[in-house]
């Protein structure tokens, strides 16, 4: 039941005292006349309402969440505690610099660590999410070319396996998107890339390991091709969790990258946000970085790069998310960061190998932190789709893998276990996957009905889009 349906006129909570100064009201012409319909409930009723909502939500805390490309790793408790310190939460963004030295230290310190992990020279914490970071990175590329009066570069190359945000971000930055097909091995088709590379190319957007979970071995050649045509290389950091401490984007030839602190650096996703999408770059781009960078040794201060592209959002990014990520980095440190990546890769390969006799892998080789299976044959043979298997998992308390992505794999399920899952959890999930495969062959109808243990069964999404009902009507 919606909170509005539980509302009763005249109920409520007692929060604010009466005014201790004379009441002032705006002039009639500016006075609100439209009635308000906010909920009116006692605190106890509100508490039960939100308890109820929480029960109908599944988080990483509730069970295995191998949602590919989303890096649903465990969110440490200490991170939340640190981001709740009044010394962080109660700080106004426009306080004098000498009163926010701690905040500046947070930003400065995480910049250093993230630059080292990625092989970049400078980094801005301002972007609020991955897509926001992509947009920022592309504007850096744009500003760079403009600063060199290199006006003809109107295209961004994007592999057809890329995250949908890549082309969308390129478009937002005013670029024409050129899709580069993947080679049969899932990597970038080098020949096609060479053909596309020209003096109208502003840059390439790539993630490595790529979205099929494989490390593109031609990476140096790829970045070289782009650099040789005068373009820049953008690294989509969504998959960084696979390679920390082993490979640095900066060493692969990337000039600008974004990270997802809410994936790789363990900050919780909050049901869709807030995230944090810092953007790092090589020296030659750093003068275009947006917002302010922290400078100084003893006393820290904020300095705006001279040719900054401007502001990407207000203030300094999703600061409290950054606090969580810094807490995480301090905890793992030099040894723990690579350990996380190594075990993310181990867990993925373990699951892949324990499933591949039943579930055909899109690419049957060593994967990185995730792997993609194709259920095309299963669907042909039994009518059971990737979606059906996904819904079947729900009844076993497992959050399904990413479905139907990447687009280049038919009936794809993309599995990313992350390093924070135990062998037992993986073994349990493997058993469930295998059970469902068997069920697909023996009783497909049952799988079509799944899930049956959830608060609602499969929802009519077509109808939702066709007849949008986007708010409660009073």
């Amino acid at each position, binding site marked *: 039941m*919606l909170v509005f349906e539980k509302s009763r006129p005249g109920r409520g*909570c007692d*929060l604010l005292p009466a005014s201790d*100064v*004379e009441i*002032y009201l705006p*002039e009639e*012409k500016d006075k*609100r*006349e439209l009635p*308000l319909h*906010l909920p009116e409930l006692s605190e106890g009723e509100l508490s039960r309402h939100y308890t109820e*909502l929480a*029960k109908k939500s599944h988080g990483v805390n509730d069970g295995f969440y191998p949602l590919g490309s989303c890096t649903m790793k465990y969110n440490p408790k200490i991170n939340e*505690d640190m981001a709740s310190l009044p*010394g*962080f*939460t109660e700080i106004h963004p*426009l306080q004098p610099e000498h009163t926010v030295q701690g905040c500046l230290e947070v930003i400065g310190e995480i910049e250093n660590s993230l630059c080292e*992990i990625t092989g970049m020279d400078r980094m801005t914490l301002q972007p*609020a999410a*991955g*897509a926001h970071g992509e947009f920022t990175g592309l*504007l850096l590329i744009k500003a760079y070319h403009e600063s060199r009066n290199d006006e003809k570069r109107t295209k961004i190359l994007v592999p057809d396996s890329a995250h*949908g*945000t890549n*082309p969308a971000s390129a478009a*937002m930055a005013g670029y024409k998107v050129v899709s580069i097909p993947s080679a049969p091995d899932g990597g970038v088709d080098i020949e096609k890339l060479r053909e596309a590379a020209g003096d109208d190319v502003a840059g390439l957007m790539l993630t490595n390991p790529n979205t099929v979970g494989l490390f593109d071995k031609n990476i140096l050649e790829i970045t070289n091709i782009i650099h040789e045509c005068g373009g820049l290389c953008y690294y989509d950091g969504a998959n960084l969790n696979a390679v920390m401490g082993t490979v640095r984007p900066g060493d692969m030839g990337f000039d600008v990258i974004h990270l997802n602190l*809410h994936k790789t650096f363990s900050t919780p996703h*909050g*049901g*869709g*946000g*807030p995230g944090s999408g810092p953007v790092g770059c090589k020296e030659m781009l750093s003068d275009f970085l947006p917002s302010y960078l922290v400078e100084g040794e003893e006393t820290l201060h904020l300095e705006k790069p001279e040719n900054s592209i*401007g502001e990407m*959002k*207000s*203030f*300094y990014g*999703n*600061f409290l998310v950054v606090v969580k990520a810094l*807490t995480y*980095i*301090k905890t793992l*440190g*030099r040894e723990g960061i690579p350990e*996380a990546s*190594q075990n993310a890769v181990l*867990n993925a390969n373990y699951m892949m190998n324990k499933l591949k006799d039943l579930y055909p892998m899109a690419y049957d080789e060593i994967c990185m932190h995730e792997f993609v299976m194709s259920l095309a044959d299963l669907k042909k043979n039994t009518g059971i789709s990737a979606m059906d298997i996904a819904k079947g998992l*729900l009844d076993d308390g497992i959050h399904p893998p990413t479905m139907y992505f990447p687009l280049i794999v038919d009936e794809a399920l993309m599995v990313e276990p992350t390093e924070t899952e135990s*062998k037992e959890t993986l073994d349990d999930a493997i058993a469930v996957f295998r059970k469902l495969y068997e069920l697909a062959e023996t009783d497909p109808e049952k799988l079509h009905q799944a899930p049956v243990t959830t*608060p609602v069964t499969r*929802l009519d*999404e077509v*109808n*939702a889009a066709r007849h949008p*009902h*986007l*708010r*409660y009507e009073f």
Partner: protein
Amino acid sequence: MGSYVPNTLEERKKMLQEIGYSSIEDLFAHIPEEVKLKGELDIPKGKTEFEVRREMEQIAEKNQVFRTIFRGAGAYRHFIPAMVKNVTSKENLLTAYTPYQAEISQGVLQSIFEYQTMICDLTGMDVSNASVYDGATAAAEGVAMCQERKRHKALISGTVPPYVLEVVETYCFGNGMELEVIPEKDGLTDKEYLKEHIDAQTACVYIQHPNYYGNLEDAEEIGEIVHDAGAKYVMGVNPISLGVIKTPAEYGADVAVGEGQPLGLSLGFGGPYLGFMASKEAMMRKLPGRIVGETVDHNGKTGYVLTLQAREQHIRREKASSNICSNQALCALAVGVYLATMGNEGVRQAAVLCTSKAHYLAEELQKIGYKICNKAEFFHEFVTESAIPAEQILKALEDKGILGGYPLDEHHILWCCTEVNTKEEMDQVIRILKEVPAC
């Protein structure tokens, strides 16, 4: 070091063996040696929870927490009911991803549906999205969504906060929209200039209400000018003000955006905040970002799903209306809880207290010789002018643990009062400022 990897070294070895490898390195062997990092990362060693807690607490202590704040300028300290943190700490909501799997995400989805409803109700608009990053990006997205094939110019008032203007500029630098600033006149949008410069290429006009200086604009009249020119009217609003001030809908706006931080989010040195976006029905499919809709399940039971995804990047890729992918769901949850807890009376009361206190402080400042620059009606912010340098005034307050208004320049200060500022605090400000010598 700390580690969140459960499997022990032995277990890892066993797992490797089971799948036919002898070491972790085997799994990375195919990566070309040339790109591999030689040696260790040059970052500090990992630390235990005890050490990390101490370190972070020590860092936090380097910040000064002001007990009393009279600074707004885009970030506001309001009262936050205990219920808000209580709900946003619930881990099933906190640690969930975007609700792609609706069946196990009804809690998150319903909370967004409720948020959308409340934003519509607060603004008077028809449709709300699930939130965007913050008020400034909401403004930029609000402007961008008005772009039409033949209209790609945006007029933006010079009375919007500087950082909002800058963000809109950055977004326009990206998408190629032409941007023109309507100059400020007496703290308000120059309507004459607007009339002269609005034309058939103008996609939209953006103003903020109350504006950066706290003033209420002639919002209805501006709306008429905008619509007469066939352009869209985008208004940025302070959501708390909507407790007493006319809604963007009543002023005739097509799109309403704003910073949601005042609705239950802490100052947090600038984030995470939340941008709300709402529009008239007609522009529904131009709204960027996630939107949740109501539907039914196979048994006819009501449920909620992400909908209208055909606008979005994961379907449309480069043809999407925006690249935005995540929303600020947890912040939207906080806003929903805030509004539900405050209720009609609470929101109205907060608005009345804000404006009443601001007017009290303005009057008292005036009594001791500060000039109030606002010529129009103002809400909860106002600008003073004084011969005494702003720096000196603010220093005197800071010495007593008070964060004074925001210095606009050497002699102008932008003050803000909210419901948390007591008369006693304001009287203390006056007492302190009385002692500040006029240079």
